[in-house]
């Protein structure tokens, strides 16, 4: 008796909570670290990027107005869903990254833990980043944090799951929505992560994931006038400069690529959250 023929998954994009193919009809071959064929991933176009930005913008009012408690719960739910698919991600990481099963397990566990860590920040970041300001006059003066808006994220090439989770979670936990360009070389875990997101009560459009060429798509996102910020973590030298220049057109907040190689297992700190937060200061007179 012959072995059963597996039913393979078609890897598509993740836009507005749905899984469309690229409008361009393009795909590209994704291979394992050993060079074996894994899948044909969708190769997103600038028009897919445009659709993703529109979806992220549409999701922004609701997601940014959700209570911090609610956002925290949803991120925690994402962690739960990820944990439930642990073995699937381990297998994908082994294929994609060429890591051993044990290492892959560690990375998936770290990704779950990272989500839990950020989930807890939802209702605390405002307390450490806001302030009551003792102005010299009869005014109540309070500074509080607000999300910047729609954030384009160029995910790191290395770390197809942990790196990806580590750039998405800090952006959305504070109420931003995002369009992510996934690792070009190892995009499959990002689409599987999208399946996790899609089943975690995360409103459609809060996270949109594009697979394909960062060099092709990222400049369109960087120049898009309805994108408020860009995380260039995964953009290499030339691309980062091009994107930063394009981002100047509407004064996007830019998180530059790290100066040194990032250890995704290390304590991430708060910088990835604060890079995409605005401070709003409200004054009101105090009187009878």
């Amino acid at each position, binding site marked *: 008796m012959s072995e059963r023929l597996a039913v393979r998954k078609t890897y598509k994009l993740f836009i507005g909570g749905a899984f469309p193919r690229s409008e361009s009809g393009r795909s590209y071959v994704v291979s394992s670290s050993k060079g074996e064929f894994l899948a044909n991933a969708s190769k997103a176009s600038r028009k897919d990027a445009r659709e993703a930005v529109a979806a992220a913008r549409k999701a922004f009012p609701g997601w940014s107005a959700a209570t911090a408690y609610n956002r925290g719960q949803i991120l925690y739910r994402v962690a739960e869903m990820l944990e439930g698919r642990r073995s699937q991600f381990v297998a994908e990481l082994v294929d994609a990254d060429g890591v051993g099963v044990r290492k892959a397990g560690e990375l998936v566990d770290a990704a779950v833990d990272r989500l839990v860590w950020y989930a807890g920040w939802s209702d605390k970041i405002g307390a450490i980043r806001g302030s009551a300001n003792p102005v010299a006059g*009869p*005014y109540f003066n309070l500074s509080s944090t607000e999300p910047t808006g729609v954030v384009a994220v160029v995910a790191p090439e290395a770390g197809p799951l942990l790196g990806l989770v580590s750039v998405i979670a800090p952006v959305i936990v504070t109420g931003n929505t995002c369009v992510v360009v996934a690792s070009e070389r190892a995009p499959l875990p990002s689409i599987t992560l999208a399946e996790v997101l899609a089943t975690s009560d995360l409103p459609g459009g809060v996270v949109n994931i594009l697979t394909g060429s960062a060099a092709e798509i990222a400049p369109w996102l960087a120049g898009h006038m309805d994108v408020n910020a860009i995380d260039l973590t995964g953009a290499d030298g030339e691309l980062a400069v091009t994107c930063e220049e394009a981002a100047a057109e509407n004064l996007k907040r830019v998180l530059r690529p790290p100066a040194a190689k990032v250890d995704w297992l290390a304590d991430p700190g708060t910088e990835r959250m604060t890079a995409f937060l605005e401070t709003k200061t409200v004054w009101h*007179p*105090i*009187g*009878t």
Partner: protein
Amino acid sequence: MVSLESFGLVGDAGAVSTTTTPLAEVAASNSTLRAFLHGLPGVDRVGADARAAMLGTRSIKTTSKKQAIDLAIRMVDLTTLEGADTPGKVKAMCAKAIHPDPTDLSVPSVAAVCVYPDLVATAVQALGGSGVKVASVATAFPSGRSSLEVKVADTALAVADGASEIDMVIDRGAFLSGDYLKVFEQIAAVKAACGSAHLKVILETGELSTYDNVRRASWLAMIAGADFIKTSTGKVSPAATLPVTLVMLEAVRDFLRTAGRKVGVKPAGGIRTTKDAIKYLVLVNETAGPDWIDPDWFRLGASSLVNDLLMQRQKMATGRYAGPDYFTLD
């Protein structure tokens, strides 16, 4: 904001004469009065304080200062309201009212003297045909704590003795407890008792506490027939302040615009220096406007102020700083 139109106070824009009869509609009941007064725009204390403070920085120099000093003298209600007042004290004050500086007859007379009812006759006689008016406090001054009958009788006595202006106090207790109709009716009754005498209604803003209350009390007094609204008795601290006067000036300005009747304003108490007086003039000039820069529409209730105005006046004339020994203490 609730406009006067909705209470039928004003028929159409500019139709000033239609304002008399429908006053009764606003005052038809305590609830209509309340609805009207609480429909007035609020006053933000910090903003009002800041505006008054800014106007206080106006720098009035040289010719305009001379003009302001004489204006201020002409606006003074020279006041004595002590338990120890005697006919002799009042007569001396009247002499000062007519000629504030006996050595310089170019100094104008003050607007009026302000005394207790039992000394009105003395003041009327002392002032003779000088043109200085006699104002009398009435209505169980300063607390206002008596029956309406007593208040009306108090007023009638002062008027009968020749007072041409009556400074009444409102019932702050009634106002603060929300019994606006009672306050209204007392003012209306006293106004009736005044006959041809002008009625100044003292709000005692120091007890009203909030600027919202000052604005409401101003409107209540004006609707009830006040010819002037006045800040204070001088017996409660704080007495007149710039921001309270600002709120009252806004009220008379708006009342003229909506109800078509012009009402005067009198800050009283605590105004002691020329600098203070000039700040009030600036406040009038830039709030109610130049039309109120006249003793008929703005008064300063004060006593010691006059000597400071005189010292400043002399300094401007001679170039030397003046000394208090050269000015009379009556």
